[in-house]
């Protein structure tokens, strides 16, 4: 806290600034990272799981994009290239923890265990949220940018008030950090010492707007000190680093409160299938990031460490194919939407007016012989 002239705040700022360079446990070549900071390498089982889930997630992501071409999805924002963030963050969660995803985080959602078709309900145009948020503690995918950060802080603070060991992890984009709600969420979390983890997937773009037009900050993680929140800057294409950073933040949340993590990654695909990224970024840039692929890197590491062989890779690929097949098959069934749903959940009990409107619509449909 700022106090009268004379005293200094330096002590209070200890550990609030991120490392000078992104922390990295496994480098792009699959070798041990040179800048590991305090992050510990996850065990072999976790590393193998990170790899397996990324392969499945990547395959699902490609399948979803394909479904847009077949008109089975209204739109799909791919997370290709951000696989390490999608999978690393979710595997670090405990069952009781809450995940707050955005429209881009469908892979994170299915990695959490949500049924893929239920997860795609929003983008399929079936219903706003197709899954039960309570089942896996996954909030509805949030579209109004940064607004869910406040919900995460509220969930976390409520857990604290109830003396429950429960942490909320909210996923944000680099662009979303510009919204006032991100600021208010960081501040409320810090003041309340709420057990919440802010994971910023800095993928370099907000639709067409590059980070340089989004902020002049030396790094987004440098925002933490302005709230009194410890911050981490990590390589977002290193699944091990993402896992370890999120897990350590979760472990410290109960006592210390919030952590801000900036994961430096890249959006390999366009903003969505409807976007044309060639209008605003050079192909070489994309190429340079493909060379830093999160899956390849972990594959190299695991193979060298003898934790992955062709057989295993084959099994995982097959599992991924199977997963994608079932998604394709199920998504090819036409949506059967029930008009009555329109009125059922606006209020706990439909108002008299809504009952009249419901009756009118059903009569209309009966007339049209539907």
């Amino acid at each position, binding site marked *: 806290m700022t106090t009268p002239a004379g005293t200094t705040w330096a002590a209070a700022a200890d550990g609030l600034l991120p490392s000078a360079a992104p922390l990295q446990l496994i480098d792009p070549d699959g070798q041990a990272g040179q800048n590991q900071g305090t992050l510990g390498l996850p065990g072999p089982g976790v590393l193998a799981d990170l790899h397996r889930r990324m392969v499945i997630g990547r395959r699902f992501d490609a399948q979803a994009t394909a479904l847009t071409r077949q008109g089975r999805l209204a739109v799909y924002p791919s997370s290709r290239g951000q696989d390490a963030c999608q999978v690393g963050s979710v595997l670090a969660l405990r069952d009781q923890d*809450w995940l707050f995803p955005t429209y881009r985080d469908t892979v994170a959602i299915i990695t959490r265990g949500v049924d893929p078709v239920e997860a795609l309900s929003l983008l399929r145009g079936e*219903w*706003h*949220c197709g899954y*039960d*948020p*309570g089942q896996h503690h996954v*909030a*509805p995918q949030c579209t*109004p940018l940064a*607004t869910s*950060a*406040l*919900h*995460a*802080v*509220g*969930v*976390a*603070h*409520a*857990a604290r*008030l*109830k003396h429950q060991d*429960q942490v*909320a992890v909210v996923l944000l984009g680099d662009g979303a950090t510009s919204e*006032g*709600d991100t600021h*208010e*969420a960081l*501040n*409320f979390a810090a*003041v309340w010492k709420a057990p919440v983890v802010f994971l910023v997937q800095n993928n370099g773009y907000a639709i067409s707007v590059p980070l340089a037009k989004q902020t002049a900050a030396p790094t987004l993680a440098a925002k933490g000190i302005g709230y009194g929140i410890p911050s981490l800057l990590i390589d977002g294409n290193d699944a091990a680093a993402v896992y370890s950073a999120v897990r350590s933040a979760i472990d410290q949340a109960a006592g210390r409160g919030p952590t801000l993590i900036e994961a430096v990654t890249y959006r390999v695909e366009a903003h969505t299938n409807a976007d044309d990224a060639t209008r605003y970024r050079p192909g070489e840039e994309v190429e340079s990031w493909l060379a830093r692929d999160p899956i390849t890197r972990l594959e190299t590491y695991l193979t060298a460490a003898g934790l992955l062989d062709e057989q295993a890779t084959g099994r995982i690929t097959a599992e991924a194919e199977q997963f994608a097949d079932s998604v394709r098959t199920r998504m090819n069934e036409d949506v059967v939407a029930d008009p009555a*749903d329109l009125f*059922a*959940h*606006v*209020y*706990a009990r439909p*108002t*008299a*007016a809504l009952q009249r409107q419901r009756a009118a619509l059903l009569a209309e449909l009966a007339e049209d012989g539907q």
Partner: protein
Amino acid sequence: MTDVLSESDVNTQVNTNGAAPASPPVTMAAALNRALADSLAADERVLVFGEDVGTLGGVFRITDGLTARFGEHRVFDTPLAESGILGTAIGMAMNGMIPVVEMQFDAFAYPAFEQVTSHLAKLRNRTRGRIALPVVVRIPFGGGIGGVEHHCDSSEAYYTHTPGLRVVTPATPSDAYRLLRQSVDCPDPVIFLEPKRCYWSREQAILTAGGPAIDQAMVRRPGQDVTLIAYGAMVATALEAAEAAVEEGWDAEVIDLRSLSPVDDATLTESVRRTGRAVVVHEASGFAGYGAEIVARLTESCFHYLEAPIVRVTGLDIPYPPPSLEQHHLPSADRILDAIARLQWDDHA
């Protein structure tokens, strides 16, 4: 002015509503404070937070003493950010709490507008009922208190046009208690508008959550010739006009809407079909105001019963004026009488 309007007239009514004259008079502010205390005592999931609601007890003292009695963890000050207050309230409700938050003044709820319209109103529907948001948003609304700019807005039109929200407002201390208890118990998000010029109005009443349900209107004064429809602070003004109308030979019925959304169509339609004439009164600007909805739906449901068009007496279509001029903006008993006079009585027996 505040006193004349919100005390005497309302009291005459409320006493006929069966409050024991013996009981000590209570202000609306005290009734609201009691409602919050009783809600906090009744259910440990209830939390009260906002700007200055803790130690200070709120700038209108509505939360006075609650932190001392229920502790910092249940009644607390927040950082100064309304979207933050609303957004965290939504999160807390997602995790089993019943937040009752205060927006310090109407205009200062605007920073929370996105959280209110895009989440508070829609999350239940978004999740097919799997997530309920029993959040109460207390907003002191309206003017007539000599407040400077931004302290006297009436924003009910914004909230009533947003499906998924309930919008209620009390006109008397006893109903303030009742409606607030009912709002806290309601599984839907409730925008609870507090007519600030009535905070200090007194009423002799026993405070109880019983009586008309959260979505029912109340007939504050039965009458035969014309229906005056009002809410919040304007109920007292309408009652004042009704009393004055007697001398003109008009027996006016006064309806206190209480719930603006949903609205109690049955009570309104029954009354207007019977009287054949109606005046809708509110402080907010008239254009695209809430009153237009009342006129439109009643005209449709009562068309062949109407002797004259339903007219509105509202605030002017201007930003809320400075104190030196606000009396020209606010509906008065006189303006309501003038409106009644315009309802084509020539053919009236």
